[in-house]
């Protein structure tokens, strides 16, 4: 057992915005000398796909700032219109790029370079008939017990 600090993260969300916290925290913790493991389950598994294809939805998300103060008057129902999600996603991506925010793929790669261990939830992979070959290389497959093996002596454990 090492004397390194440990960070365990459970990543459960498969959206563009919620894909960031696991990778930002994991890569930063690794840079600070932590040993890190991320357990990806349910929709979080989207973050392990070779090509990350996630979106951000304005639907049911009243806290999301929208262009031209639209969030103040734009009727909630209209956020369900076809094309809204795609539009918001491309606007968010453009904004992130202009502000120097890394892409999810870049952050994930930095995590891999820093030897962040990534574990895909086997049960969810089976449940959704996901193809393991769609995932990036270097990940492991495991269940809840696998998570606790690491999280059991983690200093910090986060559920995202």
């Amino acid at each position, binding site marked *: 057992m090492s004397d390194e600090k440990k960070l365990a993260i459970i990543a459960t969300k498969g959206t563009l915005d919620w894909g960031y916290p696991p990778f930002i925290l994991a890569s930063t913790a690794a*840079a600070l000398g932590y040993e890190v493991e991320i357990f990806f389950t349910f929709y979080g598994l989207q973050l392990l796909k070779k090509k990350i294809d996630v979106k951000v939805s304005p639907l049911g998300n009243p806290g999301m700032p929208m262009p031209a103060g639209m969030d103040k008057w734009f009727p909630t129902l209209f956020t369900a219109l076809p094309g809204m999600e795609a539009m918001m996603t491309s606007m968010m991506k453009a904004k992130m790029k202009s502000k*120097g*925010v890394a892409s999810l793929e870049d952050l994930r790669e930095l995590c891999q370079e820093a030897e962040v261990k990534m574990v895909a939830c086997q049960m969810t992979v089976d449940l959704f008939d996901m193809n393991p070959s769609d995932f990036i290389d270097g990940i492991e497959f495991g269940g809840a017990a696998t998570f606790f093996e690491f999280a059991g002596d983690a200093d910090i454990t986060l559920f995202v």
Partner: protein
Amino acid sequence: MADFDEELDASGLNCPLPILRAKKALAGMSSGQVLHIIATDPGSVKDFEAFAKQTGNELLESKEAGGKFEFLIKKA
């Protein structure tokens, strides 16, 4: 700014990239060498303090000039 051995321009990059790039740059340096970092992310001021405290690399200097933040970090 005092003397330094390597320079890292992290201008235009946002959290956590300046820290990650600095970590990478320091990894390629030897103990006692000094890294000069330039950043534009205002959050980097606090972050480099925290980075230094947690990694043991010493933050020799931290200053702001014309919207740029500059740091000198000595590798432990």
